[in-house]
């Protein structure tokens, strides 16, 4: 299931290999897990934020998760756990009802009054920053690892991610001449693109590709004309934004028409969590981009 995403995703062998490697690492560290008390406590974690949930899984500590928020969609087994809503708009009682003793959440967990209420009722709330840099990802993994008595596993995971990224970058034949874009939304009302300080930009920058919307900060509405003036070699769109649309449907939208007629319909639909969250699958996302550019 780890390599089995929706049919319209472009899946390449390289990505699967890396995912399998990470799962194997997770399984290896899992082998010793049940003999390790998690900081001497019985942890039952409500995990809030796809990045946090994926990291706990990648560290082999998934057995401590009792519930997740709706943004936690990977790996597939996570969807069988009880859900307590979206992590930015939680209900304190909803989380308590899951039987969790701890909440591990990404920054943005809220509303603030609900977080305070959870803490006042004795829930241990740990909030982790999810900065959009590779060192930031390292820090998040280390912090979660430290809380789960998985320092060794977190270092192994970080080394694995770094090695994968280094291998991908080394093998890459692309240069700054190659232009790419990530469109957060594509509708007849316009485009919303990823600029600086976003995970897609980090992926492009690490691969030494040029983001045509690099002048924008965050996710912003942009003019479709940019796609005509500086047509990217590849446009990446998260799957949740184009449910029910094929790539040809997308390219026939008003905002994309001119680009498609000039450059062709070079659109790649991807797993949103992999490309929008800071997860241990960062290298997998890079591999997908490179494979598509080949």
């Amino acid at each position, binding site marked *: 299931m780890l390599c089995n995403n929706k049919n319209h995703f472009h899946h390449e062998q390289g990505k699967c290999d890396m995912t399998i490697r990470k799962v194997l690492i997770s399984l290896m560290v899992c082998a010793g897990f049940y003999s390790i008390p998690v900081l001497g406590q019985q942890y039952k974690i409500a995990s809030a934020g796809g990045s946090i949930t994926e990291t706990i899984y990648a560290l082999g500590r998934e057995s401590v998760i009792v519930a997740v928020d709706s943004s936690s969609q990977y790996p597939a087994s996570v969807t069988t756990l*009880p859900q307590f809503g979206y992590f930015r708009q939680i209900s304190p009682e909803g989380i308590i009802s899951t039987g969790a003793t701890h909440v591990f959440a990404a920054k943005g967990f809220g509303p603030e009054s609900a977080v305070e209420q959870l803490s006042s009722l004795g829930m241990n709330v740990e909030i982790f920053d999810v900065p959009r840099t590779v060192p930031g990802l390292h820090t998040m993994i280390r912090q979660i690892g430290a809380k789960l008595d998985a320092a060794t596993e977190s270092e192994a995971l970080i080394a694995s991610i770094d090695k994968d990224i280094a291998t991908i970058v080394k093998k890459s034949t692309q240069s700054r001449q190659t232009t790419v874009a990530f469109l957060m939304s594509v509708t007849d009302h316009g485009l919303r693109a990823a600029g600086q300080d976003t995970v897609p930009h980090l992926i492009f920058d690490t691969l030494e590709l040029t983001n045509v919307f690099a002048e924008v900060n965050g996710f912003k509405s942009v003019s479709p004309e940019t796609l005509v003036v500086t047509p990217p070699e590849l446009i990446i769109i998260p799957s949740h934004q184009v449910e029910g649309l094929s790539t040809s449907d997308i390219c026939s939208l008003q905002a994309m028409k001119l680009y498609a007629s000039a450059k062709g319909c070079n659109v790649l639909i991807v797993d949103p969590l992999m490309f929008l969250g800071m997860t241990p699958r960062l290298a997998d996302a890079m591999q997908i981009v490179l494979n598509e550019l080949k």
Partner: protein
Amino acid sequence: MSTTATRISRQITKHELKQRTLLIASLLSLPVIAIVAISVGPASVNLLDVMFQKSITELQVNIITDIRVPRMMMTMVTGAGLAVSGVILQSMFKNPLADPGIVGVSAGSALFAAIGFWINASIGFAFIPYSLSIPLMAFFGAVFSIALLFAIAGESGQLQTNLLVLAGVAINTLATMLLGIIILLVDDSTLRQITFWNLGSYAGIGFTQFAPTLLVVVIGFFFLWRQRRALTLLSLGEKQARTQGIKTEKLKLWSLIATAAIVAVCVCFTGIVGFVGLVVPHICRMLLTSKLSILLPFAAVVGGGLVALADIAARTINMPEELPIGLLTSLLGVPFFIWLIRKQRGIR
């Protein structure tokens, strides 16, 4: 002649009986709704457990006392406050579409709350705790809007109703435009916070938020209640009210301040809870009367009950997830409202 008089007298008595029955029935329904609100939720604990079970844990007691009770009370108080504000504004402006939004209070709150989220995401507030920053900003937004309304529409102590409506439209448009600019400037995470705030939510409401809300709503309600006769005369026309000795400008000014204060305190902690201020007054008028002495308490009871019911639904439809309260108030109220309209038209 006397037969007709007797018939009219009987009809009046029948109507009064209906009014009393409805008012008493709605009042009696509040404790029932309150008990249900306290008894249901994603955590498996109810009021009876807490009252009679000895083996109950401290956490279960806290769920009732710290989460469900203040939340239930807040829904009732804010629902009552918003409905009463709607009654006053519709009566004062003689406009069936008047609601707390018409004078720009809601839009002002939403704009300042968005500015608050933006500041929190960038430089942060130096002297205000994070959890208080948004309610305070939303409250100031409401106060600022009402001050702006008086500055635009008021001249030499005169407050013309039509100018107030137009000024309200201008403030709404300005606030919406500025909110649009903020939405363009903020990052994705802040954008989502703004969106959720605008959908309204009672998650995280405790006694800290409930106490000031209750205080302002109760004071505001009693002020408006004391002015009910003057407001009734005002709704018949300013000239007529003046000839009856009513200082109409002063009345409008203070009534607007009272309604704005009620709306500001309701909205600042929970975000925008739509529908209640607009439609509950109409429902109450259709069911009972336009007489403010009956309409004000009845709207308070119906508004409180409706929001409490909507919150029960929001918490329990998809447990342990929660739905936005604003959607549920409309979902519960609109079908009933449509039924009432059709009934008034004689359509079955």
